[in-house]
């Protein structure tokens, strides 16, 4: 059996060599050919690692000379950026799950806002234990995810409309409950998770890492992930290879909402309070931006975990550097949007080149 495998592999390699040499043989003609080949080798790498290179370049500039390098590269600043952007990171990971199967979830930020509030309320107003508060948050995520998923997958409502409407409904419920007041928490465990470090690294970053590993595993190493990718690629073909497309699409919304619910708990931990003003679009848009930006890197054309994290922290450190240089507040929205559009445009151009060569 093993021998058969090896020989099959070997003969494929031979074919590959044969194909390659027929294109580059002595009669390959025009002298532009080698240059093109070089370019064609560089392009995929550039595409794959473009964002990483940009990230390192940006980091180098801020950390070495522009304008307060010492502050930028100080441990306090690095920890602060990593900690602050862990929650948006978790939300971006929540967003990519439905995106992989071709669906939008615009409620990620709203769910986080809602569960931040539910957690804070459970702990302070009702004095439940932290465990109960977390279970409650996850239950809320489950409920919203099931509702979103049912409407999109089984009723057939467009996901954009469903989740946009749902986000507005949640915003209304939040205002109804809080009347706009912030709920401050005093839970020590949660406070520690939000503010303390472990081995010099913010605790909350470990939480992000756990979520990232789980999502990475689910999307890349389980049949579930492969199924979601197949549905995103061609739902009809997915059905005809035996997939229960509707159930899987619904599950993707459930997963996204549950991860968002966890992000809500982390948000309370980080901020020490639940502010009804923080949530909804303010959190959703950067999460989606990071997801799309991340889809241009590492595995170009696919929403992927590593690319998404890279995107989150690329934006995070860029904004930190700019803020340290007294570039005023408007830069946050401006830069996030500009980076997204520029990156997607660039990857579209490179992608078109590649398609042209096929």
């Amino acid at each position, binding site marked *: 059996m093993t021998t058969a495998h090896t020989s099959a592999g070997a003969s494929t390699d031979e074919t590959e060599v044969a194909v390659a040499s027929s294109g580059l043989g002595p009669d390959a003609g025009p002298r532009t050919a080698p240059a093109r080949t070089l370019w064609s080798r560089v392009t995929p790498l550039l595409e794959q690692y473009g964002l990483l290179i940009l990230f390192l370049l940006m980091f180098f500039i801020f950390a070495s000379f522009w304008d307060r390098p010492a502050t930028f590269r100080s441990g306090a600043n690095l920890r602060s950026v990593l900690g602050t952007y862990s929650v948006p990171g978790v939300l971006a990971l929540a967003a990519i799950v439905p995106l992989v199967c071709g669906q939008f979830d615009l409620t990620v930020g709203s769910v986080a806002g809602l569960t931040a509030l539910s957690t804070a309320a459970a702990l302070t107003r009702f004095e439940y234990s932290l465990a109960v508060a977390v279970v409650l948050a996850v239950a809320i995520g489950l409920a919203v995810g099931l509702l979103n998923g049912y409407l999109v997958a089984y009723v057939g409502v467009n996901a954009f409309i469903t989740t946009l409407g749902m986000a507005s409904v949640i915003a209304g419920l939040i205002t109804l409950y809080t009347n706009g007041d912030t709920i401050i928490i005093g839970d020590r465990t949660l406070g520690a998770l939000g503010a303390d470090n472990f081995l010099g690294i913010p605790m909350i970053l470990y939480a992000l890492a756990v979520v990232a590993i789980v999502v990475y595993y689910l999307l890349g190493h389980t049949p579930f992930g492969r199924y979601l990718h197949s549905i995103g690629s061609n739902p009809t073909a997915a059905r005809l290879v035996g997939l229960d497309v509707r159930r899987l699409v619904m599950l993707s919304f459930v997963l996204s909402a549950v991860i968002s619910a966890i992000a809500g708990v982390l948000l309370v931990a980080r901020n020490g309070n639940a502010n009804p003003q923080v949530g909804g679009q303010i959190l959703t848009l950067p999460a989606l931006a990071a997801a799309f930006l991340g889809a241009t890197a590492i595995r170009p054309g696919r929403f992927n975990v590593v690319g998404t994290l890279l995107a989150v922290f690329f934006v995070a450190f860029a904004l930190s550097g700019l803020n340290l240089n007294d570039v005023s507040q408007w830069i946050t929205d401006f830069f996030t949007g500009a980076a997204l559009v520029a990156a997607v445009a660039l990857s579209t151009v490179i992608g078109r080149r590649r398609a042209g*060569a096929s």
Partner: protein
Amino acid sequence: MAQLHGDAQGSAPALRVTSLSKTFPGTRALDDVSLEVQPGHIHALLGGNGSGKSTLIKVLAGVYHGDPGGEITVGTASAHSDKTSPQWARQAGLHFVHQNPGVFPTMTVAENMAIGRGFETTGIGSIKWRALKRRTAELLERFQIQATPDMPVGLLRPADRTMVAIARALQDQEGGHDGVLVLDEPTASLPASEVDVLLTALRRYAAAGQTIIFVTHRLDEVIAISDRVSVLRDGRHVATIDTEGKNEMDLVELIVGRALDRVFPEMPPVESEEAALEVRGLVAGPLRGVDFTLRKGEVLGIAGLLGSGRTELLKALFGAYPLAAGQVLLDGQPVRFKGVEQAMDAGIAYIPEDRAAEAAFLDMSLRENVSASQVRHYWRGLRHRHGAEGVDARRSITDYMVKAHSDQQPFGTLSGGNQQKVVLARWLRRRPKLLLLDEPTQGVDVNARAEIYGAVRRAVEEGTSVIVVTSDFEELSRVADRVIVLAHGRVVAQVAAPHIEPHRLTELAFASAGDTTRKVAAS
């Protein structure tokens, strides 16, 4: 149409391509191609998948630039091969109509005509409807299309839709002899009766002096209407010959570069009398009570026109189309599938007609495509075994003779024939008891067709029973042990080998369709 020129018009070619090459990273799609097309000719362009004919068309259309050094001349306009553009092609008089004619079905003929060239408007920006309709009526007259300017294009016959697209492409030409019309697989999606309508129209346009380049896989059409044939193979121009006196086998030899004794392998004889599948009174969609039995190891062909319910029959057997009534027995056991997964578990495989829409995951890798029907197979010890999946994928590439440089290659970059082989491998890997093939060789070249049926034959030898639906009755007559003819939702005739002849099947399919219509009308 007043000043017409026939074939006799001098020797200046309508189109001349000189030393055209096109290099892609790793491959040479076109290698020093030179050819001429005479004015007023229907010039067929033939070649297998990957022969470079699509690339040639794309260079002509200005979508790709050729390598420097070649030249393209259309009438009196000339351009270096690396300097062409869509604008240049249009100005030079090259007009393209693709397989999907790109008409808007819900819009009227007049609107479709105007959409390519812009609407004429009055001073205040509203459309000059009356002028547009008059112009459209003239065009319909000139191209002899049976339609009125106000008809939605979706209501036209499929062939007329293509002719509307042709008229739209040629509308601004002064005389009938100007420019070159390039038709890329115009008949691929037309039913047989419609093909004749279109071919007749093309012959008429050519007789009026229109130069036409005709790309197709259907060799009978080439023999029927073309004046000359150019054949490409592996990016090289192999030959340009007069069509007169040539038959399909001559063309096949040029295309594949060797004599193909048998494009279709002989299927092993059916030895078993045991039924693999029995269908009793099946009602689903257009099907109104279908009965037939498939024996173990048999290849059963289904002949039927578009709309006869042939696709629905296969989908219903595969659990992908709701059954209204009837009984299906698989190996003697009654089955009723709630979904595709159950049918797959019972050992059924289905290869759909429309590969791009129903089988392909174009942006995913070849590897992911070939294992799409058995992802769970690689789920061991709580993780997906990417390594084992890759090994199996590479083995399938060799076994099914897929031309690919790696199993990680995006599926969309494979040629049609190679994509189809991958889809076939996806299902044959599961060693199905029952294989349902819906138009398995549509848009697939002769070589790949032979390889596809070779693989089916191997499956049959291992005990798979096959139902194959195809509009190519020639193909049915070669591969099927028995053919049932489906018309208006019923089995109306049955022919067993060796009496399966293409023209007989055509007669049966059309005659039965007519019969039923008459019966329905009478009742």
